[in-house]
């Protein structure tokens, strides 16, 4: 088959036009239009932790591990509870053995026995992914395997993560880890598979003390949103500019 240069160019141009014209029938949406077209446009998930109610029983950690299939005895976890004991000399003793999964039943912290008489204050702080509005983990993922959904939750695509660990390094809260079985980055996602079906995250359902609650910030009638917007709440490490969306009641200056 012979084909002169002129014919080749003619056919190539014709073919390109023929394939491009139908594409132009599609319209490009602006970001706002696209967002409005998405069903979840009026959802922004957030979380409220009331540290004054937490007793450090560890049921939330157990529930999370079971619900999200994180190997039970692996020393990594999507959520954990920290114990803070401030002694009279002003020192903060902090621990979270196995993420607080089995509760805190000993007076020993990091190998040091604490005398109950010597304690100024003590409390528990549950931790989980902050589902930041400006997530550094999403910024640094080289392949886009971790991404933010329209309703504010940061997810990981297990089929696309290359396991470089950059997101783990980038998270100031230390919520990310490598899943021991799947060998990809893993983290809390507010139990996205549950909240998108109208259920509560596993840790929220398992907390008998109402220390953990989930909120939709776009719903002004949501009782938890009301607390976040009308009462005094704080976030962790706001100096990193990540705009975290887990809000705390009763945070202390010693909390890391």
């Amino acid at each position, binding site marked *: 088959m012979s084909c002169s240069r002129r014919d080749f160019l003619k056919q190539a141009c014709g073919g390109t036009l023929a394939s491009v014209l139908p594409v132009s029938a599609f319209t490009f949406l602006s970001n706002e239009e696209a967002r409005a077209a998405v069903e979840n446009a009026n959802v922004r998930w957030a979380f409220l932790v009331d540290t004054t109610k937490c007793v450090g029983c560890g049921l939330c950690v157990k529930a999370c591990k079971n619900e999200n299939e994180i190997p039970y005895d692996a020393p990594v976890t999507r959520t954990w509870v920290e114990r803070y004991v401030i002694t009279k000399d002003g020192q903060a003793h902090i621990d979270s053995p196995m993420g607080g999964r089995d509760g805190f039943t000993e007076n020993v912290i990091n190998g040091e026995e604490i005398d109950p008489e010597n304690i100024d204050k003590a409390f528990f702080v549950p931790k989980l992914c902050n589902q930041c509005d400006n997530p550094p983990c999403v910024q640094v993922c*080289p392949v886009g395997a971790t991404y933010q959904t329209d309703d504010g939750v940061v997810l990981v695509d297990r089929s696309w993560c*290359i396991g470089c*660990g950059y997101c783990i390094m980038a998270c100031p809260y230390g919520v990310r880890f490598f899943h021991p079985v799947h060998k990809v980055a893993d983290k809390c996602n507010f139990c996205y598979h549950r909240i998108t079906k109208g259920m509560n995250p596993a840790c929220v359902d398992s907390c008998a003390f109402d220390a953990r609650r989930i909120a939709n910030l776009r719903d002004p009638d949501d009782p938890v949103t009301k607390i976040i917007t009308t009462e005094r709440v704080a976030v962790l490490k706001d100096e990193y500019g990540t705009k975290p969306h887990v809000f705390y009641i009763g945070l202390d200056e010693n909390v890391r």
Partner: protein
Amino acid sequence: MTSEAVVHGVEWTVKELFVYPNEFIYWSIQIVMYPYMTGLVAGAFVLSSLYHVFGQKGLKEIAQFSLVFSLALLPAAGLPLLLHLQQPTRAMEPLLTPHFTSAISAFGIVFTTYGLIVVSEIWFVYRRFFVEQVHALKGKEGFGNMLRLNVYRALTMGAFDISDEALKVDHKAAKILAGVGIPVACFLHGYAGFIFGSVKANALWMSPLMPVIFIMSAVVSGIALCMLTYIVIMEWKAFRLRRTVSVTAATEIKGAESDIINTATRYLLGFLVAAISLEILDLIFRGYTAMKSWDILRSVMYGKDFVNIFVLQYTLGNLVPFVLLLLPGRTMKRTVVALILVLFGVFMMRWNVVIGGQAFSLSFSGYMHYHLPIIPHSLETFKEGLFGALSVAATPFVLFWIINKFVPSLERGEEAKY
């Protein structure tokens, strides 16, 4: 779930005081090797460009060698990343779906661009040699000659014109590529520094000086490795010649020329001073501003990692070789010792950045200690252990041995016309 599930990092991390449950030393020895090898690549190329672009005639012989050696080093710069990935079979994804807000996403692009520049420059520099080989080997009998003929024929890529005009064009092209290559080489490595410097969560890494410090120390280590390898190979050649050729001829054999080494040493010292100054500036600045993280950084730098940072890196790796190279009456042996120490110092700098940056918890309330796996008992402890690192370090020498079979980068004097 399976009981054999191993959490990445547990093998070599020991925690002290309060560390978040998910924190481990995730970036281990291979991530120390990555900037180290990349630095060697960039440094080797900059050394060769000093001759090709800036016409430093004294560096001619070592420049040819550095250029080819930087090609041999190149695969060894990507290898540590591959060995470190939890999903190595997905290594091509950053090229398929690059997410450009991530510093790592550009690695494949920068790496490939740089590789193309090095390969093209080598081609232009050695094209005349390839053509001459084809002519010399034509008609010769034997399988070996046939093979070599075909390899060289392929290497010429059909460009057999070696008239003076054609060679002039070659020369110009090599010069342009060497010139373009300098910023690309610096970018390749400066950007490795950016990968660390832009991690805002890490108090030790986050610094805009990081890329510049990385470039300076890269050039230092690259020049040092090229000088060292060059000296060793040349002395070995001279030694072998001395044994085979008669004693009278032996007096004419020079080994590694001292004027080449002198010129290269001057550049080495210059870049070394720049690298140390920047590192000290960074340290002073952190101490002076004393941000929230300074308490834990200070306890790591002046306490836990004191030997690694101040004894091994600054004293043994920087100060001692600096003095050794500056003192008058420098001999080849002393130069070799100094070069080995310089290479060690830059390695310790990479170690102290990568491992040191994970020596403290994000909570600023605890520490993590790294224990390099030595005897491997699983794929992971091999890949991210001593032997994995040694494999990476040995790769460029093996590759150079192969490449040098076809590209004579070690010819000197009269023979070195390419």
